[in-house]
């Protein structure tokens, strides 16, 4: 009986491997093509050969960093996104910890309301927000982006953190309470360090979503506060499209996210499903 089951999969394993390889190639080919094109000169990219074999050049990266405004876009993104990540983690912890530790009907209702915010499409949010931020003269400043990104990431961060805080054994906190620590200290000295990997993962995922944003940035950023994603589209000019430069810039936009995902990979599934699939 068991012999039969051990033999059948072997032939299948080869097929699975080939299929797996094929699937992997399909999914990485465009990305590889982007990275490769970023290292090509215009002539290499636009000549009719379809090739990964060429003499790589750093011209496009020089163009991106020294001859365009793209660098300032990266700086704007870095500033707005990192401030918002710090803010998100702080504000979300403030909500997530009581939610995890002192659950109640009110808190559950609050949690449902917060997750329902995730359903609203950003284009619906941004019209009134744009008008309001314009009235208080915040459009064109990175603070409008900080606010919007924090708002955008809060539901995710709250739900994730709630899950991580819940996993801290209740007994440890109770022991600390008996030792006379107050709620704030228990959270900062015990719960936070114990759930540090989860908190870091939450921060990384918040970073990814804010960094990848284009819609909010496109509408809210002014001439001096273009983000990296908005800057990317500005290589398209009426005169022509510098494809090789765009591919280099695209690679630059993508690398930090890949690195962040690599560090958070253990929590990726959890993060992408707001903690509902572990």
């Amino acid at each position, binding site marked *: 009986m068991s012999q039969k089951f051990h033999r059948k999969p072997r032939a299948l394993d080869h097929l699975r491997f080939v299929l*797996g390889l094929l699937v992997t190639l399909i999914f990485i080919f465009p990305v590889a093509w982007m990275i490769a094109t970023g290292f090509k000169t215009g002539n290499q990219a636009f000549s009719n050969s379809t090739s990964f074999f060429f003499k790589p050049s750093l011209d496009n990266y020089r163009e991106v960093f020294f001859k365009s405004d793209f660098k300032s876009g990266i700086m704007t993104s870095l500033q707005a996104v990192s401030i918002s990540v710090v803010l998100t983690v702080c504000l979300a912890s403030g909500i997530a910890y009581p939610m995890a530790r002192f*659950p109640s*009907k009110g*808190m559950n209702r609050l949690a449902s309301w917060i997750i329902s915010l995730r359903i609203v*499409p950003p284009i*619906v949010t941004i019209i009134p927000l744009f008008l309001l931020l314009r009235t208080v003269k915040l459009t064109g400043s990175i603070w409008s982006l900080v606010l919007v990104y924090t708002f955008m990431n809060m539901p995710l961060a709250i739900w994730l953190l709630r899950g991580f805080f819940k996993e801290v054994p209740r007994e440890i906190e109770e022991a600390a309470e008996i030792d006379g620590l107050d709620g704030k200290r228990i959270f900062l000295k015990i719960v936070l360090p114990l759930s540090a990997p989860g908190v870091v993962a939450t921060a990384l995922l918040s970073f990814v979503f804010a960094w990848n944003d284009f819609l909010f940035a496109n509408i809210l950023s002014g001439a001096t506060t273009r983000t990296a994603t908005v800057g990317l589209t500005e290589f398209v000019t009426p005169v022509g499209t510098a494809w090789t430069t765009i591919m280099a810039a695209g690679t630059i*936009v993508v690398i930090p*996210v890949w690195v962040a995902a690599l560090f958070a990979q253990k929590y990726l599934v959890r993060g992408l499903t707001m903690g509902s*699939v*572990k």
Partner: protein
Amino acid sequence: MRAKDNSSEGSSRAPKRVHSGRYLAIIPGVLLLLGLSVFPSVYALIVSFQKWILTDPNGRHFNGLDNYKDILLGSEFWHTLKITLLFVILTVVIESLLAYGIALIFFRPMPFHRVMRALILLPMLTAPIVVGMLARFMFDSQFGIINRFTEIIGLGRHDFLSGLNTAFPVIIIVDIWQWTPFLFLIFLAAMQSVPEELIEAAKLDGASKFEVIKNIFLPLMKYPLLVGITLRLIDSFRVYDLIYATTRGGPINLTSTMSWSIYDSGFKVLNIGIASAYSFLFLITVLIVSGIFLRQLSKENEER
């Protein structure tokens, strides 16, 4: 207020003095969420009953239900609704099926298993605007590599993103390429959480591969499957970056989804009144469609 409401519940073991400040920390976060959701929503609702074009020197005034009437009686709305629903249904269905299939391939370990799995995730981790620009480059009529392929296999050159018959399918293909990995990751995690013994036991009882999938995988995976599909559904409605980078709603309006159309009337035509009314109709659409799944999800959640 909240602290008072809940003081009878929660843990009675906690010392009294922690009690009062227990829910204080939620205030800043909740204020931010309220400030950026409820307040703007009410504002948008008011604006949706106004005639307000930013370039109009006469300013704004209430015009009752005119905006809604204009939208619902025009053909544009119904067209974008059709395009949006078609886009959402096609992408979510195809992505789910593909993701399930790919998850089955990767369910058991094989050489380079982890590396391949990580590489498959790259599209999902690439900013949608970058994917959009990349798609525009690859499908470019002059320099695009796709045209080189089609030429080699004898299909000739095409201007895919401006073609009446090709633009919409291309957008869908790009979305599938980017987001199938998302569902794949969730489905694979779900499959791997199915206890090995259950599968072995079923096999020993002589269950076929199909029976194992139908009777063991699917029931146990129902919840994560639903979560993944629901999230994908909600996000599929949002498609904007991709369209901004590639077709801008064209050719004519064949790729004009609701997200794009609202952006167009709000930030290009600057007709804020119409855009606001349109937003509410869009929100209602999203709520109706995702509501079906969300209800199912909360039912499953109770059963778990």
